[in-house]
Structure formats: C-alpha cells, structure tokens
C-alpha cells in the first residue's frame, strides 16, 4: 500500500500530484510540498542512517536543520539532511556511512567496542610505533570517520549572488516575524523578511505583506550569518531553473530576530533509536505534511508544550499509549490530555528497545530529588516516542552579532540579555514562552547509554569523563568530546551537555556558559558561497589592444598577474627554445617587435611634480630636461627595492613615469598615499594612464629604417633623436609618443599610441618590417635580451629584501624614501648578497633558475646566494646567468657552485653584463 502513514487529509501538500522517488533502491511516492523526510515517514521508512562514531542505526528525529542523524546522499551530493530536502519527482537518495548496506553495516562493530571508544580515546593510544599509526591506525580511523563521500562529478548547478539594502531585516516568518514586518512596513520602512520555509504565514498574513510595497519577501531563504554593521548573509533555495541557490548580502539598518525556538531532546538510556522524535516535529509532520510518524505513540516531556502534540496525535487517531512527564506537578496544560490516556507524572523513560525501529519503552518513577529512579519498570509498546526536553531560543545570529546571552534558570534556557545596537529579538527568540517552567533534569538517572549529542555519539558518560579528566571548561569539553561539533551544531543536545558538565564540575550552569556561536547557522555549500566567481570570472583577465593579433599569430601565452602576455611565437614545429633563439637573433641582428602595453604608466604633474618624484626615487628628477628620459628606481622606506621604470619629462611640471607590469596599481597607490597623508603641501596630481596607451616596442639595428617609412616627418638621426629622449609624431598616421628607451640593449623605439590605435600601429609595423625580417617577440626573449645586458627585473633579481646598493646602483646623497634605512648596519655590511653575473664552466649548460649558490662543493657549505635569471644567449653563443652572491662584487673571477636537482655545477662570478658593455648598439 502506498504511503501507509499518510493521513487521509490535512497538511500543506498537493495531494492531487504524485511524485516518485527512490531510497536505497526502493521506490516510493510522495507529494509536492513534502520534504524527503516527510515522504519517507509517510512510507513507513524508519531506518535512514548510521551515526558518526558508533554506526548506530538511526531514523528521523526532527523536522528541521537540527536533524542529527538522517543524512543521505542524493545523486552525487553527500550529507543531505532529509528534513531540508524538498521532494522532487525522480529524486534518488541512498544512505551513506554504512557498508555493505544500511541494515547490515560492518561499522556497527564500533558500537560493540564502544567501551574502547570513549571521548578522546584516540589521544590515549596509537603513540608507538609511529609507523603503525601512520600506515594502519590513522587510515583506518579516517575511513571509519567522515560521513558521506565527496561528489565525484562536476556540479551542474549555478549559484548567484545578490545584494540588497533595507531599513529593517526581519529574520523568521513566524507570527512574531510577520507582525514585525507588517509594523515596520506600515511605517514606510524598506523591509526584507526572510523565512527558511518555502511559504510562510496564513493567507491573511501573505495578503497583509503583499499590500506593503516596500516589503520584500524572501521565502526559502535562511539567514546564516550576521556580521559587523548588521551585514547579513543568507542562502535562498531557488525553485526551478539553472540557478540552484542565491546568496544574499543584506545591509540592514536594523535587524529583528524572530528566529523562534528550538526544541531539545531529553537524555535517557536508548534515546537514539529510530522512532524517537522531537515532539514538536511529530506535530509538524501531522500539521504541515499530513504524516503520522507512527501508529502508537508515547509522549515523554519535561514541559507543557508536548501536551498539544498529544492532543494532535489523538485528533489524528493515533493511539497515545502514555504521557510521561518528568514533573510531579505538571502545569495546567496537562489537563488537555485525553481522558483515557495513561498518565505518568514524576516518571521517566529509562530504556527503549527496537534496533531498526522502536517497539517498546520502559518507564519508572523518578525519586523526589531526581537523583534516581525507583519502583517497578513499566513496559509500554509503541513505535513512536515523542520527546520534549524544553525549548531554546534560537540565538545564533544574536550571538554572532555580539549579543550577550544569559542563562534563565526558570525557563531553563539561554535567553538574550543585552542586545547590540540595531538588533531586537521578538517572540520565542526573546524567550517569551508562555508556559509553566520545565524541569531541567539533564540526565535520567538509569543505567544504559544515554546520548547527549546524537550526531557525534557523545554520551552522558563522555561528559562525565571529560569533567573527570579536568576538561571542566565548556570549550574544552566541546573539543574533547566533540559535543556540538557536528553538522547539526548540537542544537538538540548542547544545553544538556552544558547542564551535565556544570553538575560534574560543581558549578552553576550560568557560570559554565555556552560556546561561541559562529557562522554559518546552517551548513552552506562552497558553490553557493563562491557564486559566479569561478573560472574566468574568479579573476579578471586583462588583455592588451593587440591581443587578438598575438592569438592569431599562434603565440603561447603566460599569465603575469591578471595579464595575458605572449611568451613566444613558435613557427610550425618549433620548440620554445628554438622560437626564443630565433626571436632574440632577430632583435639583435635585424628587427623585432614587442608588446609592452602592460607596463604601468602614471602621469605625475603639478607645481611640485619634480620635487615629489625626487623624494621617492634613488635618482634625481629635477635636473631632467624636457623631452628626456631617465631610468629610476624606487625603494620602500626600509631601503628595499620596490619598483623601477623609466621616467620622461613632458614639461616643466609634467612627468610620465613607468612602472613594472605587476606593480602599476601599487605604485599609484604609493604615490597617492604619500601625497595625501605625508606631503599634502605638495601640489601634485597623479593620473593612471596604463590602459590609455598601447606600447609597441620596435627593436634592432634596422628599426630606424622601418620607423622612417612610417614616420616620415620625424628626424631619426642620432643627433635629432638621441638615446633616452622622447618625441611626438605621427606613426602610420596615428598620434604617437616615441621613447628611445632600450631594455634589449639594441637600438629601440617604444612607440606609444592611444590604446584604441594599438592594433593598427602593430599591424602597420609588422607590415613595414616584413622586408627587414621583422618578427614579433615575447616575454621569454625579452627576458634573455635584458639579461644579456645585466638589467635586473624587479621580482626576479629582487624579492623585497634587496637594496639598490646590493644591485650595484648609485644613490643620490639627498634624502629619499629608503635612504636612511640603507645606512642601517645590516644593510651596509659588505657580506650582503650582491648582483653578479655567472658563467657556467660548461658554456652549453643552462643552470636552473632558483639554484642555490655555495662557495665550495662540500656538503656543509652555507648558502651564499641563488641564481635569479638563467638562459642560453643566442648572440653571445653561450649560457649565462644573473644571481645574488654574498659579497659578490669582490668575488669576480672566483668559482661558485650552483646546487639544483641534486647536482653541483661550477660557475665563474663575473660582472653582470655579457653583451655590448659600452652600450654602443643601444646608442644607435
């Protein structure tokens, strides 16, 4: 018979439609509006999972996120809480953490050995021998632990992020929340009301809310974090379509927490069997889903709320075999019970039976002081035990926002004390329970294992053990026993754990306190948190205006930060080495073209521009003539090289400085920081021009001829356009700035045009250069060419610990950022690592970059430096390298050894320049 436990009527489900689903290979039916939990219960499925440590058979305890045991795998997704999964047609769920099957789990062996597995057992053993721990015990422990298996396939879903602002964020769509939203909305406030369930309130409520235009309803949305400044994050389950979940970021003026209260379990022997459920959940399954969680129920409570559940059960014609109340004198609510219902005040459930499904409980009288049970054990047959241990206001978000909680002995719960500014608690979340106080008996004093935390199998004995071993601080007990550290965050058992610890430690519960609440309130998928920041969107891709040309030309690219830069342009069949060799030789012998657009460009202008730059660089700027260029190096105030580039004086009060590609933004930030915070008296303006200008660098002995064809109006002879000068002219009809700067050591023109003209310029140069054998070259060849000249690269020869003096640069005498630091004793000492050239004894062997350098070949030789750049130089016809060597400048001619990959390679220390040391070719 289909759905034997579905009531004939009732529940907010769509009975006219039938959904088919599977669990562990068996086929079942349910309805839209069901959760997987309600549908399983409707079909009489009791055994749903196995517990974390002891692999005990477990069923469904609850109807919400507090579910500790009923976690299944759906499709490829592990650890799905059946109470939070909306039933879909075709859903296929399987049990997890059990082998070979849910009913017959090999892991149940752990339950038999439970005595050997108390809290913290793993700290007390497996110490020796270490190999046995590493190769046998730890792998075994890991396999026994964990819950579901990670997904194997890619996630087909997409996740969105949304941002909103509001005056009032109301969390929780129960009566208190709806009232708060309506009240605020009626005053014209912009309100967002977030509720976990897919629908909320009665029709009248929904109408009232719909009538308020500034009230936005987010159903199926759980607020899981509340951060500084009332910044809330929430996850919305999206009904249909490609977006599975939406992550909301909500900045609220005020937050109203109408988060309700959470029912607790009672701690008694055998309290974890399938069929033991929270009383409130039993009522929820009846009212919301039209599902009877059993046919014959016993109700076990310490407070008034369970009597309503008993009444609902009777109305649904489910037999209530007994009501057991820990209190000798239950409140007026007890009068609600049915006339014939067996009633046991001052009694407790002391044992249960039924391995895969509850079938019986035993009840005994509680002694006056609650310290023992006495009298006869009364057996009661039942398949459902509805338990209520009291209610905790849901204060996770309140506590995340630094709200202070205080233990209310009368209500036996932590309630809000001081609210932080801008946050209010209303309804049950504020501790407003309208009832006779519950009896806070934290453990039924009967023999047998009683579970405090069902998720992690933490028993009352474990708490006692923790206290016995001195873990009397609640945070120590939590970590030692793992109380509350499961995916359910211990919602149904934490307070009992705190209560038991307090008793064992001889301390009040208020003094013991509670562990810190942290986001997320419910587990949230990493996919939802990452949203669209995946793949290409995880980091912007920056391309130069010539990018498409490079791609079409078959360039192999490298990532330099966010930039895509051509590394080399292989012809058909060429290896990287062959391509780089060809590109270098073209640059040295004929002509070559390089896209240098990514370099940072900053215009520095104003009355004090030169004075400002002088304060930052190791070199002077004030004496640079208009239209001339100068190489500059900048340090941080600790004396370490920060960045370098060529500056050009465009006018008396105007400079254009360049930076390395990677530091463009950092240098602009640096400039602005010093101007605004330290030297506001200077009149200087900085403008980023990095993306305004494209840069095609034309290099080689034939470059002048190529340029002459494209810039007929520009005098290009050496006198008219010398090295380190700038000219403005039309090139290929495009407005251009030309800089005679050379990073390659050849005659070289850096031609800058407005970015939108970059591609046209490039293509014109390629065409004009064809007859001269012009080829494009990439960053790899660029590296080789500059290294042959001994030009260091920031971030390669420097790593934040290298000074200009280490690099052999001269610094001016006037003060600049970093100058004073260079005089510190360690920065002035002679043994510092200094930039040198290195020539391997074998001219055909290229030593690996990053090789360690040692002064002698012995095993104990201390490190003397490392190889920073290393290549084969096609024009010089041999391998060479740059490196940092201790006291290197005094060691020219000596041999050092490069240690890499287990080998030692001898190299001779030399001056760091290998090609055209006079600079004649560069001077053109």
């Amino acid at each position, binding site marked *: 018979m289909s759905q034997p436990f579905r009531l004939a009527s009732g529940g907010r489900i769509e009975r006219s439609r039938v959904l088919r689903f599977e669990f562990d290979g068996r086929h079942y039916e349910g309805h839209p509006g069901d959760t997987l939990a309600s549908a399983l219960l409707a079909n009489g499925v009791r055994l749903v999972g196995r517990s974390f440590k002891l692999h005990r058979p477990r069923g469904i305890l609850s109807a919400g996120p507090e579910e500790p045991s009923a976690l299944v795998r759906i499709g490829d997704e592990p650890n799905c809480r059946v109470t939070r999964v909306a039933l879909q047609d075709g859903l296929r769920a399987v049990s997890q953490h059990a082998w070979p099957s849910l009913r017959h789990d090999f892991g149940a062996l752990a339950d038999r050995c439970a005595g050997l597995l108390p809290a913290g057992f793993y*700290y007390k*053993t497996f110490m020796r021998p270490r190999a046995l721990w590493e190769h046998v015990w730890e792998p075994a422990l890991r396999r026994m632990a964990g819950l*579901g298996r990670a997904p194997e396939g890619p996630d087909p879903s997409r996740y969105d992020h949304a941002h909103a602002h509001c005056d009032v964020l109301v969390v929780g769509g129960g009566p208190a929340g709806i009232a708060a939203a309506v009240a605020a909305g009626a005053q014209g406030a912009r309100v967002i009301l977030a509720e976990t369930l897919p629908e909320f309130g009665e029709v009248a409520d929904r109408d009232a809310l719909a009538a308020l235009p500034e009230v936005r309803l987010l159903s199926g949305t759980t607020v899981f974090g509340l951060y500084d400044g009332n910044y809330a994050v929430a996850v919305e389950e999206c009904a249909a379509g490609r977006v599975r979940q939406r992550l909301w970021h909500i900045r609220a003026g005020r937050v109203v927490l109408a988060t309700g209260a959470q029912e607790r379990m009672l701690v008694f022997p055998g309290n974890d069997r399938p069929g033991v459920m929270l009383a409130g959940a039993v009522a929820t399954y009846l009212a919301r889903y039209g599902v009877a969680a059993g046919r014959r129920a016993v109700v076990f409570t310490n407070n008034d709320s369970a009597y309503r559940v008993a009444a609902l059960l009777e109305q649904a014609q489910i037999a209530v075999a007994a009501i057991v109340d820990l209190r000798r004198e239950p409140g007026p609510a007890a009068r609600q019970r049915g006339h014939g219902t067996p009633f046991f005040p001052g009694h407790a459930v002391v044992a249960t039976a039924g391995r895969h499904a509850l079938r019986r409980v035993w009840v005994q009288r509680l002694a006056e002081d609650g310290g023992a049970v006495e009298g006869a054990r009364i057996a009661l047959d039942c398949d459902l035990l509805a338990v209520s241990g009291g209610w905790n206001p849901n204060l996770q978000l309140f506590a995340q926002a630094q709200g202070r909680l205080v233990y209310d002995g009368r209500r036996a719960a932590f309630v809000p004390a001081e609210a932080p500014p801008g946050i209010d608690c209303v309804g049950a979340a504020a501790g407003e329970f309208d009832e006779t106080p519950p009896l806070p008996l934290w453990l039924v004093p009967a023999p047998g294992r009683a579970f405090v935390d069902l998720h992690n199998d933490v028993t009352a004995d474990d708490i006692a053990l923790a206290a016995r071993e001195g873990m009397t601080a609640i945070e120590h007990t939590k970590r030692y026993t793992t109380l509350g550290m499961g995916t359910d965050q211990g919602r149904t058992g934490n307070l009992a754990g705190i209560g038991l610890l307090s008793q064992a430690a001889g301390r009040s519960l208020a003094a013991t306190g509670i562990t810190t609440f942290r986001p997320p309130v419910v587990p949230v998928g990493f996919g939802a948190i990452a949203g669209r920041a995946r793949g*290409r969107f995880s980091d912007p891709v920056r391309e130069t205006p010539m990018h498409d040309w490079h791609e079409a030309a078959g360039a192999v690219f490298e990532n330099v930060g966010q930039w895509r830069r051509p590394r080399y342009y292989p012809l058909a069949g060429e290896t990287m080495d062959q391509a780089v060799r060809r590109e270098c030789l073209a640059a040295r012998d004929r002509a070559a073209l390089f896209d240098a657009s990514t370099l940072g460009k900053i215009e520095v202008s104003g009355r004090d521009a030169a004075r400002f730059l002088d304060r930052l660089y190791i070199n002077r700027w004030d004496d640079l003539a208009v239209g001339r260029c100068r190489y500059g190096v900048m340090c941080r105030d600790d004396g370490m090289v920060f960045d370098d580039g060529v500056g050009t004086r465009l006018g008396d009060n105007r400079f254009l400085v360049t930076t390395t590609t990677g530091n463009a933004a950092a240098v602009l930030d640096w400039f602005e920081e010093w101007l605004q915070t330290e030297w506001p008296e200077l009149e200087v303006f900085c403008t980023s021009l990095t993306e305004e200008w494209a840069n095609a660098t034309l290099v080689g002995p034939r470059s002048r001829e190529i340029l002459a064809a494209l810039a007929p109006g520009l005098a290009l002879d050496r006198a008219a356009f010398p090295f380190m000068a700038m000219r403005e002219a039309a090139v290929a009809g495009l407005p251009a700035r030309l800089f005679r700067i050379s990073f390659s050591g050849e005659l070289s023109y850096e031609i800058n045009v407005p970015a939108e003209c970059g591609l046209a310029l490039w293509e014109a140069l390629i065409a004009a250069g064809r007859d001269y054998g012009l080829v494009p070259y990439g960053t790899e060849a660029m590296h080789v060419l500059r290294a042959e000249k001994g030009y260091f690269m920031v971030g390669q020869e420097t790593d934040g610990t290298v000074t200009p003096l280490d690099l052999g640069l001269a610094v001016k005498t006037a003060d600049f950022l970093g100058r004073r630091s260079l005089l510190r004793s360690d920065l002035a000492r002679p043994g510092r690592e200094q930039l040198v050239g290195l020539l391997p004894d074998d001219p055909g062997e290229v030593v690996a970059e*990053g090789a360690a350098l040692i002064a002698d070949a012995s095993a104990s030789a*201390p490190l003397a430096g490392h190889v920073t750049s290393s290549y084969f130089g096609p024009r010089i016809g041999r391998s060479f390298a740059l490196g940092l060597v201790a006291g290197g400048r005094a060691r020219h001619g000596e041999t050092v050894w490069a240690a890499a990959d287990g080998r030692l390679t001898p190299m001779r220390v030399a001056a760091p320049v290998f090609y055209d040391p006079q600079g004649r070719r560069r001077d053109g």
Partner: protein
Amino acid sequence: MQRFSLIALAGHALGRHRAWTPLWRKPAPRPRYAVVIVGGGGHGLATAYYLAKEHGITDVAVLDKGPIGLGNTGRNTTIVRSNYLRSDSARLYEHSLRLWEGLSAELNFNLMLSRRGVLNLAHNLADIREGRRRVNANRRHGIDAEWLDPAALARFCPILNVSDTARHPILGATLQRRGGVARHDAVAWGYARAADARGVDIVEDCEVTAIRTANGRVTGVETSRGAIAADKVAITAAGHNSVVAAMAGLRLPLQSHPLQALVSEPLKPVLDCVVMSNAVHVYVSQSDKGELVVGAGIDAFNSYAQRGSFPVIEAQSAALLELFPMFSRVRMMRSWAGIVDVSPDASPIIGKLPVEGLYLNGGWGTGGFKATPGAGHVFAHTIARDEPHPLAAPFALGRFASGALIDEHSAAAVAH
C-alpha cells in the same frame, strides 16, 4: 601521570572509565615562582615543559586568562611543515619538525601527527622560480623538498585541478613529504599534562593585568588572581603580545589581525595531503574526522575581536573551488577566527626584551602552530640561560634596528 596506551584504555574500559584522573592539576597560583609564563597556548605550555625537562627548572607557572589552548593554538588550520626560504627560518622550523616527529611518544599523548605531504602550488613562472629556489635552499639544509611537475603532481594529488583551462593553471608544486597536519588541541593538552607531571603549575582563568619592575628588572606580575612574584617573566601570548608588553612600557613591531578559518561537513577520505597556494589564495587539508580544514589570508584591519568579514570567506571558497571544483556541493559547517600578531617580516620575535628578566616569544603571526615544539624548546633555553638559543638568536628584537630582517612573506603562504 596515568600512562596512556591501548592496554590502559582497555583496562579502564572494564571500569567504565571511572578511574581516569585529571590531565593536569588546576592549582591556585603560588605567591612566587622562578619563572612565570604569560600565555597558556601551545608555545607557553611547550616552553614550560622544556624548562622542566631540559633545564630542570620546575618552579614555573603558566598563566592564561582563560582555559588553556583556546587562543590561536585552538584556532589554527593545523599545518605542520618546515619548508621556509631563509636559512635562519628553515633551521628553526626544521628543528621543530624533528621534535614533532617524536613528540607523541615523548609526551605519551597522541598528537595525531600525520606526515602526509605539503604541496605549495606554482601558478606562474615567478612561482616556479620561487618554488625551485625554496626546494634547493631546503635541500642544502637537509630538509626534504622536491619539485613536482604537473604530471607528477596529478599522480600525487589526483583530485587537484591541473587542467590548463583553469583561470590560473597549476604549473608545478614544491612538496615536503614530511610535512602534514597534527591535532591542535592535543598539542596543548599533551604539553600541559607532561609539564604538570613535572611540577609546573598551570593556572587558568588568571589574567595578567600588570608587570612589576624595579630598577629595570622584572619582579613579578599582577593578575586577576592576585600578585605573583617572579625572577623571570616570559611573554608568549600570541595576538595579545603587544598588550602584555605594554604593561612593561614596551612597544613592539607587531600588529594584531583576525585570521579566519573554516571546516566543511565531514567526508570520507578524499584529500590525502595538504595543499597551499599563494596565487589562488587558499590552503586546505582534511582532518581525521573527515572535515576539510580551510584557511587563507588575514583580514586587513587591526582587531582583537576574533572575528573577520565575510568577503574573506567568499574569496577562500572561490579559491578552494578553483583548485578542487568537486567541492562545490560540499558545505561549510563552521567558521571562526583567531588573533594573529604579525611582524614586519613575517618572522617571529624570540629573545630578551629591554627589561632584565623579561622575555618574548611572539610575532609568529599566521605560522605559529608548526613551530610549537621548536619555539618552546628554544625559548626555554633562552629563558633558562638568559641568552638566546643559537637557533633563536637571528630572531631577536634588535634585528629591526640593524635591518637584518628575515623576510618570509612568500613562504608563510598566507596573504598579509
């Protein structure tokens, strides 16, 4: 001290574990000690242990303002490794790693050290250079280090996304096979129990409120549980070192920041090594309980609040999925934060302070957990002999004046 072993466990099981005794005593503080250690985290407790064990100094109190081990020791991502770049750091962290390797046996407490390998990924040519440099330097110091190309990397960590269509493709990695993880709480409890057994007083819920000095020499501390006289006071209160040092009128080159971390829901074993990336900034491992343990960079602002901002969590989740797209449907279960005291060179400050009898072991920033045994060991020596242990000497406070900083920002692998 009750000896721990499988046999002991079985024996106690018969008695339903009723006969276990406290792991450490909780004595009231005495009026004076030879050494007072301010800070009951892993470093402070380790220091006390080595003072007792190596130097025979047992007249020691470890003071913590709350229960022990709940500061950064209880909040880190549990990574243990020694693959730092600079010679001075490498030696100190390697000293620590060698102590780790025998520590569970020595303390008779299973610290659950799992030497499963630590990968530091390279995503661009600069990363490759830096990684190879570190491998070569490590090997010169006798520290195990290898370079893996993408093919070898895919074999070592099969679930890592080594596809070249990733936004920042992985081009290789350094591997330290002896690196891995250990259970952080166990380290605090293990050292506490062993130190306590040797006579050290562990005094919890005892907040130091003042440091007493006379004639440039420390004479003791004031605490929430009364005044305590001491010949030597050793500060190792990660995150709060500036606060405590200020009590002696000293300023330090430290800034305290939040460092957030998170765990996922427990999974069956899926990640068998530690993976760290600078460029795609995240580091992750899987605990023995099955949770993925994930961390990344600090929150930029100064804070003592032990909480940070949500964008940090978003960024590390996105980074995690770039490296392991399969974790998209795995859920974050819990997040938290510690207070890290960051130094200008991402290296610790160990040694004497400018007040006689006052010592500091701090500024470990984001990397203190792996150094717990090594730091405790050298700090104990420094205190006992009133002069820095040779491995600690380069990390003296004076290096900031001389400029001999030990810059480990890259090897620290945590964005600052």
